């Protein structure tokens, strides 16, 4: 399986993401600079955290117009697996690949610590290795992670099972304790907590590793189906 990690000027979790794939899965993983226009070789594209373009104007607002984003839109439409973490999540909402927006934390602090998440939907390509309702420990590190949708959009997310993770103790004022969401099709997932920083016990938690295993399994199942046809 081929993984691509997008790199924008100001990305700073790209190496963690790269190593998480390499160490947890041992699959092929490459960095993809923001000027790239072709993502066709990748089965899964990871949009890492950081401060792309210095977070100028709004988090993710400028990254949205990078050359690689057109290719990412195409990959999303083709049903490829896409995961955005932290600033990556902000980039995906700004690109309208995911619903909602991320606002400044309600306590105005940069929150950087372990959080307990509840797995709300374990049927996405990134969450099948979890049990529904499972509590997992994943760190957060953000100042603008307060997820916002209006009441109508929230009802829609609930109805379509697009809420993937919720915080047990809401750290930032996110609507309905939401920590991660997916698109309608389920192939694009975004979250503020960092699963790539929780792949080994020595990091404080290994609960994030299952996200990477999940997507490899999803790809294998899809691939085997194709082979057996």
């Amino acid at each position, binding site marked *: 399986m081929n993984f691509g990690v997008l790199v924008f000027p100001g990305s700073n979790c790209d190496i963690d993401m790269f190593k998480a794939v390499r160490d947890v899965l041992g699959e092929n993983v490459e960095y993809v600079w923001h000027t790239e226009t072709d993502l066709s070789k990748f089965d899964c594209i990871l949009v890492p955290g950081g401060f792309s373009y210095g977070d100028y*104007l*709004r988090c993710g*607002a400028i990254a949205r*117009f990078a050359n690689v984003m057109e290719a990412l839109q195409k990959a999303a439409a083709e049903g490829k697996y896409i995961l955005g973490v932290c600033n990556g999540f902000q980039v995906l*909402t*700004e690109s309208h690949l995911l619903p*909602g*927006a991320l*606002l*400044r*934390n*309600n*306590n*105005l602090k940069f929150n950087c610590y372990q959080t307990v998440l509840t797995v709300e939907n374990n049927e996405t390509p990134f969450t099948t290795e979890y049990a529904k309702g499972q509590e997992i420990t994943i760190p957060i590190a953000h100042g603008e992670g307060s997820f*916002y*949708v*209006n009441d109508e959009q929230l009802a829609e997310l609930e109805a379509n099972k697009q809420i993937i993770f919720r915080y047990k103790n809401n750290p930032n*004022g996110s609507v309905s304790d939401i920590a991660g969401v997916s698109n309608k099709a389920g192939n694009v997932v975004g979250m503020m907590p960092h699963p790539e920083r929780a792949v080994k016990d020595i990091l404080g938690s290994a609960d994030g590793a299952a996200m990477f295993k999940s997507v490899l399994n999803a790809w294998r199942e899809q691939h085997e189906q194709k082979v057996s046809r």
Partner: protein
Amino acid sequence: MLKATVYVTIKESVLDPQGKTVQGALQKMQFNEVSSVRIGKYLELELDTNDRAAAEVRVKEMCEKLLANTVVEDYRFELTVVEEG
């Protein structure tokens, strides 16, 4: 030349914790009449055109596409004539 002055504000329905904090600070300084503070962005765009109607359309597009995130923000703008010097 035209100048577009763009104001981007957080929607009324969305909490503004920064504004709340500034309000608290003002009240602490005895400016008790301040009942609300909302913080937004102010942008000045110089446009190489004198066509006001066209500029109106273009600036609206800029706001919708980039300058504001219409999920959580409102925007308004004014166009003024700039004397070329």
